[in-house]
């Protein structure tokens, strides 16, 4: 079976499975970032989320992030899986695992990965609240908006 280190899936993500992909005899550290569905954001109660993706491009962009990490951090191994579809509160949306020989790099590379996901990976989240629903956009405020800026309520810092 081929192991895919950069994947978009529709089923629940098994964290252990992602961690196993980055195990290495010369790793001294594995940092794992798990993004989960939070109930309250700025006083608003989320009921559930829907994620959609441009799957082939999203997997390519996740792999690109992995490559960027390999260029920056010696001997890093990276695996990223993002789930799409309907997610409930506390469900895992994304798991990033990075192993490196030394611990500082594992933290920095994992952080780098989640920030890059929010910049370049074509995945979208639609929040469903009690009183409505909305596609959430641009959580970084640093994309190009040639014709306008995102509304304040769109900018979520999670």
């Amino acid at each position, binding site marked *: 079976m081929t192991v895919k280190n950069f994947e978009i899936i529709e089923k629940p993500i098994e964290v252990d499975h992602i961690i196993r992909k980055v195990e290495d005899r010369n790793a001294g550290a594995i940092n794992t970032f798990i*993004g989960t569905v939070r109930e309250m954001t700025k006083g608003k109660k989320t009921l559930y989320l829907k*994620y*959609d*993706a*441009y799957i*082939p*491009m*999203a997997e*390519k962009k996740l792999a690109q992030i992995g490559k960027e990490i390999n260029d920056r951090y010696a001997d890093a191994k990276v695996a990223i899986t*993002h789930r799409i579809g309907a997610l409930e509160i506390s469900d895992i*949306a*994304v798991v990033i695992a990075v192993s490196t020989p030394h611990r500082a790099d594992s933290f920095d590379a994992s952080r780098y990965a*989640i920030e890059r*996901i*929010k*910049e*370049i*990976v*074509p*995945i*979208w*989240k*639609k929040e469903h609240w009690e009183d409505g629903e909305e*596609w*959430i*956009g*641009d*959580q970084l405020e640093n*994309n*190009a*908006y*040639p*014709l*306008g800026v*995102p509304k304040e309520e*769109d900018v*979520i810092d*999670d």
Partner: protein
Amino acid sequence: MIKILLFAELEEKTGKRELSVSMEMTVEEIRKKLLKDYPHVTGLASAMAAVNEEFADESVKVRQGDLIAFIPPVSGG
């Protein structure tokens, strides 16, 4: 034929995930055509474009068989 993909609020507001045009055009020209067809979908103006799964500038010429996607601000993670 050139296939056009729309996502998230672009898909929702146009009611289409997939469209097509027959003529070769630049990214900018395709964007303008879509904005003319769907003037209420203002997000089309600010969406990034990707040609064959790579982000592309406005000047890129989209050829027969290519795939262009309009990518509104992403929110994965």
